[in-house]
Protein backbone atom coordinates (compact mmCIF):
# COMPACT_ATOMS: atom_id res chain seq x y z
CA UNK A 1 0.00 0.00 0.00
CA UNK A 2 1.14 3.50 -0.78
CA UNK A 3 1.28 5.82 2.16
CA UNK A 4 1.26 9.57 2.08
CA UNK A 5 3.82 11.26 4.19
CA UNK A 6 2.14 14.62 4.13
CA UNK A 7 -1.34 15.67 3.21
CA UNK A 8 -2.49 19.02 1.91
CA UNK A 9 -6.15 19.62 2.62
CA UNK A 10 -6.48 21.92 -0.40
CA UNK A 11 -6.17 18.79 -2.49
CA UNK A 12 -9.59 17.74 -1.41
CA UNK A 13 -11.51 20.61 -2.98
CA UNK A 14 -12.47 18.25 -5.72
CA UNK A 15 -15.98 17.93 -7.05
CA UNK A 16 -17.28 21.44 -7.24
CA UNK A 17 -14.16 22.88 -8.82
CA UNK A 18 -14.15 20.26 -11.50
CA UNK A 19 -17.82 20.77 -12.33
CA UNK A 20 -17.30 24.50 -12.70
CA UNK A 21 -14.27 23.84 -14.85
CA UNK A 22 -16.18 21.41 -17.05
CA UNK A 23 -18.96 23.89 -17.69
CA UNK A 24 -16.50 26.55 -18.70
CA UNK A 25 -14.59 24.28 -21.00
CA UNK A 26 -15.87 25.92 -24.16
CA UNK A 27 -14.12 29.09 -23.18
CA UNK A 28 -10.85 27.23 -22.89
CA UNK A 29 -11.28 25.60 -26.27
CA UNK A 30 -10.68 28.97 -27.84
CA UNK A 31 -7.25 28.93 -26.39
CA UNK A 32 -4.92 27.77 -29.18
CA UNK A 33 -1.67 27.63 -27.33
CA UNK A 34 -0.90 24.81 -24.98
CA UNK A 35 -1.29 26.15 -21.52
CA UNK A 36 -1.75 24.47 -18.21
CA UNK A 37 -4.28 25.57 -15.71
CA UNK A 38 -3.55 24.40 -12.27
CA UNK A 39 -6.75 24.75 -10.38
CA UNK A 40 -5.48 23.03 -7.33
CA UNK A 41 -2.51 24.39 -5.49
CA UNK A 42 0.51 22.25 -6.36
CA UNK A 43 0.65 19.25 -4.12
CA UNK A 44 3.40 20.07 -1.69
CA UNK A 45 4.94 16.65 -1.40
CA UNK A 46 8.12 17.01 -3.39
CA UNK A 47 10.20 16.99 -0.27
CA UNK A 48 8.87 13.58 0.74
CA UNK A 49 8.99 11.03 -2.05
CA UNK A 50 6.75 7.98 -1.91
CA UNK A 51 9.35 5.60 -3.20
CA UNK A 52 13.09 5.32 -3.34
CA UNK A 53 13.82 4.45 -6.96
CA UNK A 54 17.35 3.47 -6.06
CA UNK A 55 16.11 0.58 -3.96
CA UNK A 56 17.18 -2.59 -5.82
CA UNK A 57 14.27 -4.49 -4.26
CA UNK A 58 11.75 -1.94 -5.42
CA UNK A 59 8.21 -3.27 -5.68
CA UNK A 60 6.27 -1.82 -8.55
CA UNK A 61 3.18 0.12 -7.52
CA UNK A 62 0.02 -1.08 -9.32
CA UNK A 63 -1.75 1.80 -11.04
CA UNK A 64 -5.16 1.59 -12.73
CA UNK A 65 -5.77 3.76 -15.78
CA UNK A 66 -9.41 3.23 -16.90
CA UNK A 67 -10.65 4.72 -20.18
CA UNK A 68 -11.02 8.49 -20.14
CA UNK A 69 -14.43 10.08 -20.26
CA UNK A 70 -15.29 11.53 -23.66
CA UNK A 71 -17.32 14.46 -22.38
CA UNK A 72 -19.32 15.34 -25.51
CA UNK A 73 -18.92 11.78 -26.78
CA UNK A 74 -18.16 12.23 -30.48
CA UNK A 75 -15.90 9.83 -32.33
CA UNK A 76 -12.81 12.07 -32.58
CA UNK A 77 -12.97 12.72 -28.86
CA UNK A 78 -13.25 9.02 -28.03
CA UNK A 79 -10.25 8.22 -30.25
CA UNK A 80 -8.14 11.00 -28.72
CA UNK A 81 -9.07 9.74 -25.26
CA UNK A 82 -8.05 6.17 -26.11
CA UNK A 83 -4.74 7.42 -27.52
CA UNK A 84 -4.11 9.46 -24.40
CA UNK A 85 -4.69 6.38 -22.21
CA UNK A 86 -2.25 4.38 -24.35
CA UNK A 87 0.41 7.09 -24.24
CA UNK A 88 0.02 7.37 -20.48
CA UNK A 89 0.07 3.61 -19.90
CA UNK A 90 3.26 3.18 -21.95
CA UNK A 91 4.92 6.19 -20.33
CA UNK A 92 4.17 5.11 -16.75
CA UNK A 93 5.08 1.50 -17.50
CA UNK A 94 8.41 2.83 -18.81
CA UNK A 95 9.35 4.31 -15.43
CA UNK A 96 10.16 0.89 -14.02
CA UNK A 97 8.50 1.61 -10.65
CA UNK A 98 4.87 1.56 -11.72
CA UNK A 99 2.87 -1.42 -12.88
CA UNK A 100 0.00 -0.51 -15.22
CA UNK A 101 -2.88 -2.91 -14.46
CA UNK A 102 -4.87 -4.84 -17.04
CA UNK A 103 -8.20 -3.14 -17.72
CA UNK A 104 -9.97 -6.52 -17.73
CA UNK A 105 -9.84 -6.55 -13.93
CA UNK A 106 -11.66 -3.26 -13.47
CA UNK A 107 -15.04 -3.32 -11.74
CA UNK A 108 -15.88 0.34 -12.10
CA UNK A 109 -16.01 2.46 -15.24
CA UNK A 110 -15.31 6.13 -14.43
CA UNK A 111 -15.80 7.12 -18.09
CA UNK A 112 -19.51 6.48 -17.44
CA UNK A 113 -19.86 6.72 -13.68
CA UNK A 114 -17.76 9.85 -13.29
CA UNK A 115 -14.14 10.87 -12.89
CA UNK A 116 -14.17 13.06 -9.77
CA UNK A 117 -13.38 11.94 -6.26
CA UNK A 118 -16.99 12.00 -5.09
CA UNK A 119 -18.01 9.77 -7.98
CA UNK A 120 -15.39 7.09 -7.28
CA UNK A 121 -16.02 4.08 -5.10
CA UNK A 122 -12.46 3.51 -3.92
CA UNK A 123 -13.28 0.02 -2.62
CA UNK A 124 -13.89 -1.04 -6.22
CA UNK A 125 -10.22 -0.22 -6.90
CA UNK A 126 -8.55 -1.44 -3.72
CA UNK A 127 -10.28 -4.79 -4.00
CA UNK A 128 -8.56 -5.48 -7.32
CA UNK A 129 -5.18 -4.43 -5.93
CA UNK A 130 -4.91 -0.99 -7.42
CA UNK A 131 -3.01 1.44 -5.18
CA UNK A 132 -3.15 4.40 -7.54
CA UNK A 133 -5.95 5.40 -9.88
CA UNK A 134 -5.80 7.84 -12.76
CA UNK A 135 -9.02 9.20 -14.26
CA UNK A 136 -9.31 11.48 -17.23
CA UNK A 137 -11.90 13.51 -19.09
CA UNK A 138 -11.42 14.88 -22.57
CA UNK A 139 -13.27 17.47 -24.63
CA UNK A 140 -12.49 17.99 -28.30
CA UNK A 141 -13.97 20.72 -30.48
CA UNK A 142 -12.60 21.81 -33.86
CA UNK A 143 -9.13 20.54 -33.03
CA UNK A 144 -8.97 22.20 -29.63
CA UNK A 145 -8.65 19.87 -26.68
CA UNK A 146 -9.27 20.15 -22.99
CA UNK A 147 -7.85 17.28 -20.96
CA UNK A 148 -8.41 16.96 -17.23
CA UNK A 149 -6.46 14.37 -15.30
CA UNK A 150 -6.55 13.18 -11.70
CA UNK A 151 -4.36 10.89 -9.68
CA UNK A 152 -5.96 9.24 -6.63
CA UNK A 153 -4.54 7.22 -3.75
CA UNK A 154 -7.20 4.50 -3.57
CA UNK A 155 -6.32 3.33 -0.05
CA UNK A 156 -6.20 6.82 1.45
CA UNK A 157 -9.19 7.75 -0.74
CA UNK A 158 -7.62 11.07 -1.61
CA UNK A 159 -6.91 13.12 -4.69
CA UNK A 160 -3.13 13.50 -5.09
CA UNK A 161 -2.90 15.55 -8.29
CA UNK A 162 -5.56 17.27 -10.40
CA UNK A 163 -4.72 19.20 -13.56
CA UNK A 164 -6.44 20.62 -16.60
CA UNK A 165 -4.53 20.99 -19.85
CA UNK A 166 -5.81 22.80 -22.91
CA UNK A 167 -4.37 23.10 -26.40
CA UNK A 168 -4.47 21.58 -29.87
CA UNK A 169 -5.18 17.89 -30.34
CA UNK A 170 -1.54 17.42 -31.46
CA UNK A 171 -0.53 18.48 -27.95
CA UNK A 172 -2.25 15.57 -26.18
CA UNK A 173 1.01 13.62 -25.96
CA UNK A 174 2.88 16.46 -24.28
CA UNK A 175 -0.09 17.08 -21.96
CA UNK A 176 0.05 13.46 -20.88
CA UNK A 177 3.84 13.61 -20.41
CA UNK A 178 3.47 16.73 -18.26
CA UNK A 179 1.01 14.93 -16.04
CA UNK A 180 3.35 11.91 -15.88
CA UNK A 181 6.14 14.27 -14.81
CA UNK A 182 3.86 15.54 -12.00
CA UNK A 183 3.25 11.94 -10.91
CA UNK A 184 6.96 11.25 -11.02
CA UNK A 185 7.70 14.35 -8.95
CA UNK A 186 5.13 13.28 -6.36
CA UNK A 187 6.27 9.67 -6.15
CA UNK A 188 10.04 10.05 -6.50
CA UNK A 189 10.81 13.72 -5.97
CA UNK A 190 12.06 14.05 -9.57
CA UNK A 191 10.57 15.15 -12.87
CA UNK A 192 11.45 11.79 -14.42
CA UNK A 193 12.22 11.04 -18.04
CA UNK A 194 9.12 12.63 -19.56
CA UNK A 195 10.01 15.24 -22.14
CA UNK A 196 13.61 14.08 -22.38
CA UNK A 197 15.20 12.95 -25.65
CA UNK A 198 17.82 10.35 -26.47
CA UNK A 199 20.49 11.06 -29.08
CA UNK A 200 22.05 8.02 -30.71
CA UNK A 201 24.18 6.93 -33.64
CA UNK A 202 22.69 4.82 -36.41
CA UNK A 203 24.29 3.42 -39.52
CA UNK A 204 22.46 4.60 -42.59
CA UNK A 205 23.64 3.03 -45.86
CA UNK A 206 26.73 1.88 -44.00
CA UNK A 207 27.65 5.26 -42.50
CA UNK A 208 27.17 6.53 -38.98
CA UNK A 209 24.96 9.57 -38.46
CA UNK A 210 23.28 11.02 -35.38
CA UNK A 211 19.55 10.81 -34.67
CA UNK A 212 17.34 11.65 -31.70
CA UNK A 213 14.16 10.09 -30.32
CA UNK A 214 11.78 10.59 -27.41
CA UNK A 215 12.67 8.95 -24.08
CA UNK A 216 10.43 6.01 -25.04
CA UNK A 217 11.97 5.50 -28.49
CA UNK A 218 9.23 7.29 -30.41
CA UNK A 219 9.42 10.27 -32.73
CA UNK A 220 12.82 9.54 -34.32
CA UNK A 221 14.40 12.46 -36.13
CA UNK A 222 17.68 12.82 -37.99
CA UNK A 223 20.28 15.31 -36.77
CA UNK A 224 23.26 14.84 -39.11
CA UNK A 225 23.48 13.82 -42.76
CA UNK A 226 27.24 13.73 -43.28
CA UNK A 227 27.15 10.15 -44.60
CA UNK A 228 30.50 9.62 -42.94
CA UNK A 229 31.68 8.48 -39.51
CA UNK A 230 29.78 10.62 -36.97
CA UNK A 231 29.65 9.60 -33.31
CA UNK A 232 29.68 10.44 -29.58
CA UNK A 233 26.70 12.81 -29.27
CA UNK A 234 26.61 14.94 -26.10
CA UNK A 235 23.73 17.21 -24.99
CA UNK A 236 24.17 20.56 -23.34
CA UNK A 237 22.15 20.86 -20.11
CA UNK A 238 19.54 23.10 -21.75
CA UNK A 239 19.17 20.71 -24.68
CA UNK A 240 19.90 23.46 -27.19
CA UNK A 241 23.31 22.15 -28.25
CA UNK A 242 24.56 18.78 -29.36
CA UNK A 243 28.28 18.19 -29.62
CA UNK A 244 29.73 15.22 -31.49
CA UNK A 245 32.69 13.98 -33.53
CA UNK A 246 32.54 13.62 -37.30
CA UNK A 247 34.98 12.66 -40.04
CA UNK A 248 32.89 14.72 -42.50
CA UNK A 249 35.96 16.74 -43.51
CA UNK A 250 38.41 13.83 -43.31
CA UNK A 251 39.77 14.31 -39.81
CA UNK A 252 37.90 13.39 -36.61
CA UNK A 253 36.73 16.92 -35.78
CA UNK A 254 34.57 18.16 -32.93
CA UNK A 255 31.23 19.72 -33.83
CA UNK A 256 29.11 21.94 -31.61
CA UNK A 257 25.68 22.16 -33.20
CA UNK A 258 23.07 24.73 -32.20
CA UNK A 259 19.92 22.65 -32.61
CA UNK A 260 17.79 25.80 -32.91
CA UNK A 261 19.63 27.12 -35.97
CA UNK A 262 21.38 23.92 -37.16
CA UNK A 263 24.64 25.89 -37.31
CA UNK A 264 27.89 24.13 -36.46
CA UNK A 265 31.03 25.33 -34.74
CA UNK A 266 33.86 22.99 -35.70
CA UNK A 267 37.00 22.35 -33.67
CA UNK A 268 39.43 20.96 -36.24
CA UNK A 269 42.83 20.72 -34.65
CA UNK A 270 45.48 18.30 -35.89
CA UNK A 271 44.84 14.78 -34.60
CA UNK A 272 41.85 13.73 -32.53
CA UNK A 273 39.02 16.11 -31.58
CA UNK A 274 36.79 13.62 -29.78
CA UNK A 275 34.62 12.57 -26.80
CA UNK A 276 32.80 15.80 -25.89
CA UNK A 277 30.98 16.24 -22.55
CA UNK A 278 29.18 19.41 -21.43
CA UNK A 279 29.86 21.04 -18.11
CA UNK A 280 26.47 20.88 -16.32
CA UNK A 281 24.51 24.11 -16.55
CA UNK A 282 27.24 25.93 -18.46
CA UNK A 283 28.08 26.80 -22.06
CA UNK A 284 31.37 24.94 -21.81
CA UNK A 285 32.49 21.41 -22.53
CA UNK A 286 35.38 19.02 -22.11
CA UNK A 287 36.86 17.00 -24.98
CA UNK A 288 39.98 15.04 -25.86
CA UNK A 289 42.37 16.76 -28.26
CA UNK A 290 45.69 15.33 -29.46
CA UNK A 291 47.20 18.27 -31.37
CA UNK A 292 50.11 18.33 -28.89
CA UNK A 293 51.02 14.75 -29.83
CA UNK A 294 49.51 13.44 -26.61
CA UNK A 295 45.83 12.72 -25.99
CA UNK A 296 44.62 14.99 -23.23
CA UNK A 297 41.30 16.34 -21.97
CA UNK A 298 40.74 20.06 -22.36
CA UNK A 299 38.01 22.40 -21.16
CA UNK A 300 36.54 24.38 -24.06
CA UNK A 301 34.10 27.26 -24.28
CA UNK A 302 30.79 26.56 -26.00
CA UNK A 303 32.28 28.25 -29.06
CA UNK A 304 35.18 25.81 -29.17
CA UNK A 305 38.01 27.91 -27.68
CA UNK A 306 40.38 26.15 -25.31
CA UNK A 307 40.00 27.44 -21.75
CA UNK A 308 42.51 25.12 -20.10
CA UNK A 309 43.97 21.64 -20.02
CA UNK A 310 42.34 19.21 -17.56
CA UNK A 311 44.73 16.22 -17.83
CA UNK A 312 48.46 16.38 -18.32
CA UNK A 313 49.79 12.83 -17.90
CA UNK A 314 51.31 11.14 -20.95
CA UNK A 315 49.16 8.53 -22.71
CA UNK A 316 45.52 8.05 -23.49
CA UNK A 317 43.12 10.35 -21.57
CA UNK A 318 39.62 10.30 -23.06
CA UNK A 319 35.84 10.14 -22.48
CA UNK A 320 35.32 12.79 -19.78
CA UNK A 321 31.95 13.11 -18.02
CA UNK A 322 31.21 15.59 -15.26
CA UNK A 323 29.69 15.08 -11.83
CA UNK A 324 26.28 16.84 -11.59
CA UNK A 325 27.87 19.84 -9.82
CA UNK A 326 30.73 19.99 -12.34
CA UNK A 327 33.46 19.98 -9.70
CA UNK A 328 34.74 16.56 -10.73
CA UNK A 329 34.98 14.56 -13.92
CA UNK A 330 35.32 10.87 -14.60
CA UNK A 331 37.49 9.84 -17.54
CA UNK A 332 39.41 6.95 -19.07
CA UNK A 333 43.18 6.83 -18.81
CA UNK A 334 45.78 4.25 -19.75
CA UNK A 335 48.37 5.75 -17.41
CA UNK A 336 48.48 2.55 -15.36
CA UNK A 337 49.01 0.37 -18.46
CA UNK A 338 45.40 -0.65 -19.05
CA UNK A 339 42.34 1.54 -19.67
CA UNK A 340 40.77 2.41 -16.30
CA UNK A 341 38.30 4.96 -14.96
CA UNK A 342 39.75 7.89 -13.03
CA UNK A 343 38.14 10.78 -11.19
CA UNK A 344 39.67 14.17 -11.88
CA UNK A 345 39.21 17.45 -10.05
CA UNK A 346 37.91 20.05 -12.51
CA UNK A 347 39.72 22.83 -10.70
CA UNK A 348 43.14 21.34 -10.03
CA UNK A 349 43.20 18.54 -12.62
CA UNK A 350 44.55 16.08 -10.03
CA UNK A 351 43.14 12.58 -10.50
CA UNK A 352 42.67 9.35 -8.60
CA UNK A 353 41.96 5.90 -9.99
CA UNK A 354 38.40 4.58 -9.49
CA UNK A 355 38.36 1.08 -11.05
CA UNK A 356 40.72 -1.73 -10.09
CA UNK A 357 38.78 -4.81 -11.23
CA UNK A 358 39.63 -6.06 -14.73
CA UNK A 359 41.97 -4.87 -17.47
CA UNK A 360 39.61 -2.84 -19.60
CA UNK A 361 37.20 -0.29 -18.13
CA UNK A 362 35.94 2.58 -20.30
CA UNK A 363 32.94 4.79 -21.18
CA UNK A 364 32.10 6.27 -17.75
CA UNK A 365 28.70 7.92 -17.17
CA UNK A 366 28.11 9.87 -13.95
CA UNK A 367 24.65 9.42 -12.39
CA UNK A 368 22.42 12.52 -12.03
CA UNK A 369 22.42 11.98 -8.24
CA UNK A 370 26.19 12.11 -8.27
CA UNK A 371 26.71 8.97 -6.25
CA UNK A 372 27.36 6.39 -8.98
CA UNK A 373 29.31 5.90 -12.18
CA UNK A 374 28.20 3.44 -14.84
CA UNK A 375 30.86 2.16 -17.21
CA UNK A 376 31.80 -0.58 -19.67
CA UNK A 377 34.06 -3.41 -18.56
CA UNK A 378 35.54 -6.11 -20.77
CA UNK A 379 36.29 -9.44 -19.12
CA UNK A 380 37.29 -12.42 -21.28
CA UNK A 381 35.94 -10.78 -24.45
CA UNK A 382 32.62 -10.20 -22.74
CA UNK A 383 31.58 -6.54 -22.91
CA UNK A 384 29.19 -5.50 -20.13
CA UNK A 385 27.82 -2.56 -18.18
CA UNK A 386 28.91 -2.11 -14.58
CA UNK A 387 28.10 0.46 -11.95
CA UNK A 388 30.36 1.59 -9.11
CA UNK A 389 30.02 4.17 -6.36
CA UNK A 390 31.77 7.47 -7.06
CA UNK A 391 33.80 6.62 -3.95
CA UNK A 392 34.79 3.23 -5.39
CA UNK A 393 32.38 1.13 -3.34
CA UNK A 394 29.55 -1.17 -4.39
CA UNK A 395 30.78 -2.48 -7.74
CA UNK A 396 27.84 -4.20 -9.48
CA UNK A 397 27.56 -5.87 -12.88
CA UNK A 398 24.31 -4.85 -14.59
CA UNK A 399 24.38 -6.89 -17.82
CA UNK A 400 25.70 -10.38 -18.44
CA UNK A 401 25.56 -13.23 -20.92
CA UNK A 402 23.66 -11.31 -23.60
CA UNK A 403 25.86 -9.99 -26.42
CA UNK A 404 28.12 -6.95 -26.17
CA UNK A 405 26.73 -4.16 -24.02
CA UNK A 406 28.19 -0.67 -24.34
CA UNK A 407 27.65 3.09 -24.03
CA UNK A 408 25.70 3.48 -20.75
CA UNK A 409 23.79 6.74 -20.31
CA UNK A 410 21.64 7.71 -17.30
CA UNK A 411 18.09 9.00 -17.60
CA UNK A 412 17.70 12.50 -16.16
CA UNK A 413 15.99 11.13 -13.02
CA UNK A 414 18.73 8.53 -12.51
CA UNK A 415 16.18 5.73 -12.52
CA UNK A 416 17.09 4.22 -15.89
CA UNK A 417 20.21 3.51 -17.94
CA UNK A 418 20.14 3.41 -21.75
CA UNK A 419 22.81 1.31 -23.44
CA UNK A 420 23.56 -0.43 -26.72
CA UNK A 421 23.53 -4.21 -27.00
CA UNK A 422 24.16 -6.82 -29.70
CA UNK A 423 22.02 -9.40 -27.88
CA UNK A 424 19.61 -9.56 -30.83
CA UNK A 425 22.27 -9.40 -33.56
CA UNK A 426 22.80 -5.88 -34.88
CA UNK A 427 23.45 -3.35 -32.14
CA UNK A 428 20.24 -1.84 -30.71
CA UNK A 429 19.38 0.63 -27.95
CA UNK A 430 18.10 -0.92 -24.72
CA UNK A 431 16.93 0.52 -21.43
CA UNK A 432 17.15 -0.96 -17.94
CA UNK A 433 16.62 0.30 -14.41
CA UNK A 434 19.68 1.56 -12.57
CA UNK A 435 19.82 -1.76 -10.74
CA UNK A 436 19.92 -3.74 -14.00
CA UNK A 437 16.33 -5.02 -13.93
CA UNK A 438 13.71 -4.71 -16.69
CA UNK A 439 16.17 -4.72 -19.62
CA UNK A 440 14.13 -3.97 -22.71
CA UNK A 441 14.57 -2.98 -26.34
CA UNK A 442 13.74 0.71 -26.80
CA UNK A 443 12.93 0.65 -30.53
CA UNK A 444 13.86 -0.95 -33.82
CA UNK A 445 15.29 1.15 -36.63
CA UNK A 446 17.21 0.56 -39.84
CA UNK A 447 20.93 -0.17 -39.52
CA UNK A 448 22.76 -0.59 -36.22
CA UNK A 449 22.27 1.79 -33.28
CA UNK A 450 24.93 2.73 -30.75
CA UNK A 451 25.93 5.54 -28.39
CA UNK A 452 22.59 6.43 -26.72
CA UNK A 453 22.86 9.70 -24.80
CA UNK A 454 20.02 10.93 -22.65
CA UNK A 455 19.21 14.64 -22.52
CA UNK A 456 18.18 16.31 -19.29
CA UNK A 457 14.44 16.29 -18.54
CA UNK A 458 14.09 19.89 -19.61
CA UNK A 459 15.91 19.19 -22.87
CA UNK A 460 14.24 20.60 -25.94
CA UNK A 461 13.79 18.75 -29.19
Amino acid at each position, binding site marked *: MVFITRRNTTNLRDTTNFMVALNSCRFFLLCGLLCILVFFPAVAMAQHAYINIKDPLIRKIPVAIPFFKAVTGHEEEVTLGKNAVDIMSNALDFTGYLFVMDKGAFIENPSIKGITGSEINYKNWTVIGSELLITGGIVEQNGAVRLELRLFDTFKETLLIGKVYTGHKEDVKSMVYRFCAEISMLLTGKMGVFGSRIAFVSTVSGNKDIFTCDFDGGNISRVTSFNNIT*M*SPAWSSDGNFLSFTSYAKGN*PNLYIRDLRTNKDIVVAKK*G*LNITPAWLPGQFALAATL*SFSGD*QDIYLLTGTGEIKRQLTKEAGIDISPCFSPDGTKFAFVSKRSGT*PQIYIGDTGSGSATRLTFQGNYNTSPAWSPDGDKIAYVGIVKNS*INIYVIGANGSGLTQLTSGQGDNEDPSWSPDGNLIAFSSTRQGASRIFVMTSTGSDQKLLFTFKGAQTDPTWSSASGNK
Partner: protein
Amino acid sequence: MGKKIVVKMMVLLFLSAMMLTVSCAKKTVETDPSAGIENQGSQDGLSAEEIARQRALEEERLREEALRNAIAAEREKFENQDINFDYDSSELVPDARMVLKEKADFLTRNSGLTITIEGHCDERGTTEYNLALGEKRAMSAKRYLQDLGIAEFRMNTISYGEERPLVQGNDESAWSRNRRAHFVIR
Protein backbone atom coordinates in the same frame (compact mmCIF):
# COMPACT_ATOMS: atom_id res chain seq x y z
CA MET B 1 11.72 28.81 -73.86
CA GLY B 2 14.43 29.81 -76.33
CA LYS B 3 17.11 28.26 -74.15
CA LYS B 4 15.27 24.94 -74.05
CA ILE B 5 15.11 24.74 -77.84
CA VAL B 6 18.82 25.50 -78.12
CA VAL B 7 19.60 22.77 -75.62
CA LYS B 8 17.39 20.29 -77.50
CA MET B 9 19.11 21.18 -80.78
CA MET B 10 22.51 20.67 -79.21
CA VAL B 11 21.50 17.29 -77.86
CA LEU B 12 20.25 16.28 -81.32
CA LEU B 13 23.47 17.49 -82.96
CA PHE B 14 25.52 15.60 -80.42
CA LEU B 15 23.52 12.40 -80.96
CA SER B 16 23.83 12.55 -84.75
CA ALA B 17 27.58 13.20 -84.42
CA MET B 18 27.83 10.12 -82.26
CA MET B 19 26.00 8.02 -84.87
CA LEU B 20 28.35 9.29 -87.61
CA THR B 21 31.37 8.38 -85.55
CA VAL B 22 30.03 4.89 -85.01
CA SER B 23 29.35 4.31 -88.73
CA CYS B 24 32.79 5.69 -89.69
CA ALA B 25 34.49 3.37 -87.26
CA LYS B 26 32.76 0.41 -88.85
CA LYS B 27 33.96 1.43 -92.32
CA THR B 28 37.56 1.71 -91.13
CA VAL B 29 37.40 -1.82 -89.85
CA GLU B 30 36.16 -3.03 -93.22
CA THR B 31 39.04 -1.41 -95.14
CA ASP B 32 41.68 -2.50 -92.60
CA PRO B 33 42.79 -5.84 -94.15
CA SER B 34 44.16 -4.30 -97.35
CA ALA B 35 45.95 -1.52 -95.39
CA GLY B 36 47.57 -4.17 -93.21
CA ILE B 37 48.94 -5.98 -96.23
CA GLU B 38 50.46 -2.81 -97.67
CA ASN B 39 52.27 -2.08 -94.36
CA GLN B 40 53.56 -5.61 -94.21
CA GLY B 41 55.09 -5.07 -97.63
CA SER B 42 56.94 -1.92 -96.67
CA GLN B 43 58.26 -3.50 -93.45
CA ASP B 44 59.84 -6.29 -95.47
CA GLY B 45 61.85 -3.63 -97.23
CA LEU B 46 63.48 -2.24 -94.00
CA SER B 47 67.25 -2.23 -93.64
CA ALA B 48 68.93 -4.38 -90.97
CA GLU B 49 70.13 -1.19 -89.32
CA GLU B 50 66.62 0.13 -89.04
CA ILE B 51 65.40 -3.16 -87.59
CA ALA B 52 68.15 -3.12 -84.95
CA ARG B 53 67.27 0.45 -84.05
CA GLN B 54 63.63 -0.49 -83.66
CA ARG B 55 64.55 -3.51 -81.58
CA ALA B 56 66.67 -1.35 -79.28
CA LEU B 57 63.82 1.08 -78.92
CA GLU B 58 61.47 -1.78 -78.09
CA GLU B 59 63.89 -3.14 -75.50
CA GLU B 60 64.23 0.33 -73.99
CA ARG B 61 60.46 0.55 -73.84
CA LEU B 62 60.20 -2.84 -72.17
CA ARG B 63 62.87 -1.93 -69.64
CA GLU B 64 61.04 1.26 -68.75
CA GLU B 65 57.80 -0.64 -68.48
CA ALA B 66 59.41 -3.23 -66.23
CA LEU B 67 60.79 -0.44 -64.05
CA ARG B 68 57.40 1.23 -63.96
CA ASN B 69 55.82 -2.08 -63.05
CA ALA B 70 58.41 -2.64 -60.36
CA ILE B 71 57.76 0.81 -58.91
CA ALA B 72 54.02 0.25 -59.13
CA ALA B 73 54.44 -3.13 -57.43
CA GLU B 74 56.58 -1.51 -54.76
CA ARG B 75 54.03 1.23 -54.23
CA GLU B 76 51.30 -1.35 -54.10
CA LYS B 77 53.22 -3.40 -51.56
CA PHE B 78 53.92 -0.26 -49.54
CA GLU B 79 50.23 0.53 -49.40
CA ASN B 80 48.91 -2.98 -49.01
CA GLN B 81 51.26 -4.38 -46.43
CA ASP B 82 49.88 -3.42 -43.01
CA ILE B 83 51.67 -3.82 -39.73
CA ASN B 84 49.72 -5.59 -36.97
CA PHE B 85 49.48 -5.10 -33.23
CA ASP B 86 48.64 -7.11 -30.13
CA TYR B 87 45.30 -6.59 -28.36
CA ASP B 88 45.02 -3.18 -26.66
CA SER B 89 48.62 -2.41 -27.61
CA SER B 90 50.33 0.18 -29.76
CA GLU B 91 53.78 -1.34 -29.30
CA LEU B 92 55.62 -2.45 -32.44
CA VAL B 93 56.17 -6.21 -32.56
CA PRO B 94 59.38 -7.53 -34.29
CA ASP B 95 57.48 -8.35 -37.51
CA ALA B 96 56.11 -4.82 -37.65
CA ARG B 97 59.58 -3.36 -37.23
CA MET B 98 60.85 -5.45 -40.19
CA VAL B 99 58.02 -4.24 -42.41
CA LEU B 100 58.61 -0.65 -41.30
CA LYS B 101 62.31 -0.94 -42.27
CA GLU B 102 61.23 -1.91 -45.80
CA LYS B 103 58.85 1.02 -45.84
CA ALA B 104 61.60 3.37 -44.69
CA ASP B 105 63.82 2.08 -47.57
CA PHE B 106 61.06 2.73 -50.04
CA LEU B 107 60.43 6.22 -48.69
CA THR B 108 64.16 6.99 -48.79
CA ARG B 109 64.36 5.91 -52.44
CA ASN B 110 61.19 7.87 -53.27
CA SER B 111 61.97 11.05 -51.42
CA GLY B 112 59.17 13.00 -53.11
CA LEU B 113 56.40 10.91 -51.60
CA THR B 114 54.34 11.90 -48.59
CA ILE B 115 52.16 9.43 -46.75
CA THR B 116 49.25 9.05 -44.33
CA ILE B 117 49.47 6.40 -41.65
CA GLU B 118 46.05 5.10 -40.56
CA GLY B 119 45.61 3.47 -37.18
CA HIS B 120 42.90 0.81 -36.83
CA CYS B 121 41.52 -1.44 -34.09
CA ASP B 122 39.54 -4.64 -33.82
CA GLU B 123 35.87 -4.41 -32.83
CA ARG B 124 36.31 -5.72 -29.32
CA GLY B 125 37.10 -2.48 -27.57
CA THR B 126 34.76 0.43 -27.02
CA THR B 127 34.47 2.89 -29.91
CA GLU B 128 35.87 5.99 -28.20
CA TYR B 129 38.80 4.22 -26.61
CA ASN B 130 39.59 2.62 -29.96
CA LEU B 131 39.84 6.06 -31.58
CA ALA B 132 42.58 6.87 -29.09
CA LEU B 133 44.27 3.47 -29.43
CA GLY B 134 44.20 3.70 -33.24
CA GLU B 135 45.98 7.03 -33.09
CA LYS B 136 48.59 5.59 -30.73
CA ARG B 137 49.24 2.79 -33.26
CA ALA B 138 49.63 5.22 -36.16
CA MET B 139 51.95 7.38 -34.03
CA SER B 140 54.09 4.36 -33.05
CA ALA B 141 54.65 3.58 -36.72
CA LYS B 142 55.36 7.22 -37.53
CA ARG B 143 57.87 7.56 -34.70
CA TYR B 144 59.73 4.43 -35.81
CA LEU B 145 59.92 5.66 -39.42
CA GLN B 146 61.22 8.97 -38.07
CA ASP B 147 63.90 7.07 -36.16
CA LEU B 148 64.82 5.43 -39.48
CA GLY B 149 65.41 8.83 -41.01
CA ILE B 150 62.10 9.72 -42.65
CA ALA B 151 61.29 13.40 -42.21
CA GLU B 152 58.30 14.05 -39.97
CA PHE B 153 56.66 16.48 -42.42
CA ARG B 154 56.27 13.64 -44.94
CA MET B 155 53.98 11.67 -42.60
CA ASN B 156 50.41 12.34 -41.41
CA THR B 157 48.49 10.15 -39.01
CA ILE B 158 44.77 9.51 -38.69
CA SER B 159 42.87 7.11 -36.47
CA TYR B 160 39.77 5.28 -37.63
CA GLY B 161 39.41 3.30 -34.41
CA GLU B 162 37.21 0.28 -35.08
CA GLU B 163 35.20 2.11 -37.76
CA ARG B 164 36.85 0.62 -40.83
CA PRO B 165 37.69 -3.05 -40.30
CA LEU B 166 39.76 -4.73 -43.04
CA VAL B 167 37.88 -7.99 -42.63
CA GLN B 168 34.56 -8.88 -41.03
CA GLY B 169 34.54 -11.65 -38.47
CA ASN B 170 34.17 -12.55 -34.85
CA ASP B 171 37.34 -14.52 -34.26
CA GLU B 172 40.99 -13.90 -33.49
CA SER B 173 42.02 -14.30 -37.15
CA ALA B 174 39.76 -11.41 -38.16
CA TRP B 175 40.58 -9.34 -35.06
CA SER B 176 44.35 -9.71 -35.49
CA ARG B 177 44.18 -8.49 -39.10
CA ASN B 178 42.04 -5.53 -38.07
CA ARG B 179 44.51 -4.40 -35.39
CA ARG B 180 46.74 -2.60 -37.84
CA ALA B 181 48.45 0.47 -39.17
CA HIS B 182 47.74 1.03 -42.84
CA PHE B 183 49.87 3.17 -45.14
CA VAL B 184 48.56 5.40 -47.91
CA ILE B 185 50.65 7.40 -50.41
CA ARG B 186 49.14 10.86 -50.71
